[in-house]
């Protein structure tokens, strides 16, 4: 049972495509694992679509002379369906230290972005996931009985448990749990008898004022409590 979820605001920005690349991967992977958030995303898609297409009476559409409907219709009827190019086969297997992990769909579709594992002190391993953008996205693997020294975060850090369990002073986090820590949090993550594969992103600023999420402004009381 997943206990920790992304905020409503994260889900809205994910659905609109307006999070940083690293956070899109984080939230997308959580949504893969969480039926509750899947249902939520479907609702948000519907809300955004309703805002975008509106209804005729409230939102009269100005006929814009630049849209030549007949010409565009003809162009569409004459066009060929796009051939699937550059589609990288999804690979949902991840191997590390003799362990096999099955990756959720978002990660599987982006498995070609996963770099090589490197070992860190204290029974930890790290593999970068190259997604572009300012933020770092990494797999962090903690073996059994591993721990990180207490630390704070410079920026916000999001952690998603892909497989296993880890705990800090406050809670225990299991498969699918999504934890957001800001720079006020001090914590010492550790594993006990079970290992833990997590995905971790350093979060950048969110862009509430641009793009599709602006469509939601009238609903902000619903979404940004």
């Amino acid at each position, binding site marked *: 049972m997943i206990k920790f979820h992304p905020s409503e605001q994260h889900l809205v920005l994910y*659905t*609109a*495509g307006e999070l940083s*690349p690293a956070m*899109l*991967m984080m939230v*997308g992977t959580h949504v*893969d694992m969480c039926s509750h958030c899947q249902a939520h995303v*479907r609702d948000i*898609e*519907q809300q*955004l*679509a*309703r805002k*975008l*297409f*509106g*209804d*005729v*009476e409230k*939102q009269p*559409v*100005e*006929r*814009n002379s*630049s*849209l030549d*409907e007949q010409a*565009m*219709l003809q*162009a*569409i*009827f004459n*066009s060929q*369906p*796009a051939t*699937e190019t550059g*589609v*990288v*086969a*999804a*690979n*949902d*297997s991840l*191997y590390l230290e*003799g362990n096999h992990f*099955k990756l*959720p*769909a*978002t990660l*599987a*579709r*982006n498995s070609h*972005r996963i770099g090589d594992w490197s070992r860190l002190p204290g029974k930890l391993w790290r593999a970068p996931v*190259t*997604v*572009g*953008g300012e933020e770092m996205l990494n797999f962090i693997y903690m073996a059994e009985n591993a721990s990180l020294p207490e630390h704070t975060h410079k920026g916000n850090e999001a952690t998603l448990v892909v497989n296993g369990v880890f705990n800090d002073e406050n809670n225990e986090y299991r498969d699918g749990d999504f934890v957001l820590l800001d720079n006020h949090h001090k914590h010492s993550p550790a594993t006990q008898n079970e290992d833990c594969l997590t995905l971790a992103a350093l979060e950048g600023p969110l862009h509430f004022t641009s*793009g*599709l999420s602006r469509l939601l402004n009238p609903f902000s009381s619903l979404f940004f409590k």
Partner: protein
Amino acid sequence: MPPAQPDNAEHAAELLAKVASEQSRAAFSELFRYFAPRLQAYATRQFGNEQTAMDLVQETMSNVWHKAHLFKPDRGSAATWIFTIARNIRFDFLRKNKHRQYDLSADDLWPVLAETNDSLDDDYALDDDLLLQQLSVFCEQLPNAQRTVIELIYIEGKSQQEVADALQIPLGTVKSRTRLALQKLKELIKHDD
């Protein structure tokens, strides 16, 4: 409001079904006349550039025309489906403008138009039998020493230390053979298309 506008969800879904089953140009034209101007108004606000806005409209509606068979009425309304197509196209437009080769692509995040949209989600819950069968084929391609280690660990469930004891080789050797074997398997899997 006229009863049969495409903003009536049922009617829009019927039109899409007609586009999918009989390539009905009339049905598509009706959808187009409803959705295209709204997409254009939105895209013009977004991009502040009429040409880019027109490109988004044309690309979105072309996908509606060619991929109508991928619309699944049980998963949401026609308007929602068209919104997700436009969302993906906008995302990729913004990405291309930045010329960044490593950037995520919309289809990798939201496979709205993937022909086999459901298979991966189902796979996630699937058992490992198929994977194991596939893996055993790959295992035969490993050098003997590596294959033995892999079989003892993954089929017999021994720990690396137990394998070292059984084969009377150092633990480090077991670890390196495991690592090399997994690397090799990963390559074999990657190139298995």
